[in-house]
């Protein structure tokens, strides 16, 4: 399958219904390896639902999700994470009463090998693995710029730092594809610029980025291709400049002009 090596994620006719409500309606899209792909759309357009279908929190009503050449439709969240999709959440979901370091080390969980017996008796290789993971976690905290807060509870961080910590935690799972759900929500212009730099740094690690974002400056600034959702349907797809001029997109955001 030649496409599967080029496209890291392919959604085919993805549909999710909740009772009578169609949250995601027959959406097909593909994300190329190594690009920044953005999903935009008005509130309630079904963007987060689409994310949840990809990461296994929801099972799609119809359609297929193919990741890295593998059909992952209906997989469990932890299986999806193991395969290499990591995500952040729109309303930050950190482990509040754990230190920042531990939050990131939890992200490393899926790449660790220690079994119950190894941990119970603190066997030498378990100890070495712990040390290595601690170093890797510190490295990631430094990467997102919050290393000095390593020993604080995650809940005590400032809002922007919490978003960074969520990204560090997601990166700790060694993802091939990183889903960011409104990473710049509530950011100051300065923080948005820093975020865009961070996304570029993540990209340079060879990780594909798939983001949901409202802020047009951020979206236009970093993404190579954009898909626009409205009422669960895909209404436009293409590079930022084209999408910005698309009549349907303008209508969806600003309402129909008379």
């Amino acid at each position, binding site marked *: 399958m030649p496409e599967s090596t080029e496209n890291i994620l392919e959604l085919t006719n993805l549909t999710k219904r909740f009772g009578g409500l169609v949250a995601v309606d027959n959406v097909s899209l593909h994300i190329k390896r190594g690009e920044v792909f953005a999903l935009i759309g008005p509130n309630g357009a079904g963007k987060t639902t689409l994310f949840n279908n990809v*990461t*296994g*929190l929801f099972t799609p009503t119809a359609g297929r999700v193919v990741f890295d050449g593998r059909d992952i439709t209906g997989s*469990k*969240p*932890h299986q999806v*994470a*193991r395969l290499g999709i*990591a*995500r952040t*959440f729109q309303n930050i*979901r*950190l*482990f*509040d*009463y*754990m*230190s920042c*370091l*531990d939050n990131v*080390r*939890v*992200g490393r*969980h*899926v790449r*660790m090998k*220690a079994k*119950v017996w*190894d*941990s*119970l*008796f*603190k066997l030498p290789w*378990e100890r070495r693995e*712990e040390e290595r993971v*601690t170093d890797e976690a*510190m490295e990631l*905290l*430094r990467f997102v*710029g919050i*290393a*000095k807060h*390593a*020993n*604080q*509870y995650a809940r005590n961080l400032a809002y922007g730092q919490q978003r960074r910590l969520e990204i560090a*935690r*997601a990166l*700790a*799972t060694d993802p091939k594809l990183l889903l960011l759900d409104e990473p710049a929500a509530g950011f100051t212009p300065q923080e948005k610029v820093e975020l865009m730099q961070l996304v570029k740094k993540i990209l340079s690690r060879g990780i594909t980025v798939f983001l949901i974002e409202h802020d047009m400056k951020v979206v236009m600034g970093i993404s190579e291709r954009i898909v626009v959702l409205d009422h669960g349907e895909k209404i436009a797809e293409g590079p930022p400049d084209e999408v910005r001029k698309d009549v349907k997109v303008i209508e969806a955001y600003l309402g129909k002009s008379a």
Partner: protein
Amino acid sequence: MSNAAKARPTLRDRLNIRERIRDRDTAVYGILIIVAVLFPLVTVYATGGTALVSHATRAGYWVLLAIGLNVVVGFAGLLDLGYAAFFAIGAYTYALLASPQLASSPAHHAVHINFWILIFGSMLMAALFGAILGFPTLRLRGDYLAIVTLGFGEIVPQLFYNFDQWTGGINAVGLIDQPLLPAWIQGPWSGDGDFKIVSPFSFNTDPVAFYVLVCFLIAIAVILVTNLYRSRLGRAWMAIREDEVAAAAMGINTVTTKLLAFGIGASFSGFAGAYYAADVALVSPDNFLFIVSITVLVMVVLGGMGNITGVIVGALVMYYLVFYLIPGLPENATSLASSIGLGSLNQSSGDWPGLGEETQRLNFIIYGGILVGMMLLRPQGLLPSRVREQELKHAAVLEEASAVEEGARA
């Protein structure tokens, strides 16, 4: 050569004694160890008897139970209201396999397995039942799980009542074997003057022997649970406690992780159960009622959920309250009244039943009042859990990182 000698950290550096004393957990453990060593010496010397040591041996299994329940409730955040069931399973495993009981059962053969083997057998048995209970129920969340465990906690003692062919039911299992220590060498320190080999040492309901045993069991439990707490699995438990959805999205298999919490929590209860059966030498279904589960839960919450030292201290404080202070109140109130010249209060007259009797009646109000007061004053527990400042190796890295970040900002 001299450089290499300089680079090698001195013993004092390596032990980090100052940091360790400043670390609250280490300080609490230090105090607990000192108290544990001094307690039998002081009490036996002061009272001339072992009644207080005997109390301490009982307190010991509550500490074990609290350490085990803390894994389930404190680490993984699963509310378990039927924890006494696993305690019962552990106790009965030892009681049945190390007593004459099975001779009068359909098996017609008494089984006497060594305590040191069975204590692990009881652990495994309790863990097995933990997994059996956990498997179908762990998909439930929060309150629903609590109700199911509550039901399990009610069913198990009933089963031990009703399978009276095997368990003796209401008549309890008695004559339970005492732990034996293998043959050892006696020397001048025993006051005998000669070296000789003594035949296996039986605990023979000696409180001091059981006290030493339970101290060792607690030490083992603390080491194992601490190891788990600071491991991949421990972090996964806490992640599930904090946010199950996020934990799953980070690649944690929530079902198996919760199952492990249940199984491992239950196994410590089985551990405590075997010890309990040997210590008390009489196991009856009445010893495992709902109140036991609740008392352990109160110990965990009051001590500080998720913090091992807190839970130990909570268990000791609660034991002192429930089994020593409160039952002793009527007698103490009576003697206090007579010693300060209010002896007339001790006489019953009219509606007044006498101070001792009245205190007896108010026992539970006093107990409840103390609990409410403690929770109001310290809702997070006596020793709440905190971020561990143990990444000493990274202290330097932290400073360097903050310097770099400051620099970048400036």
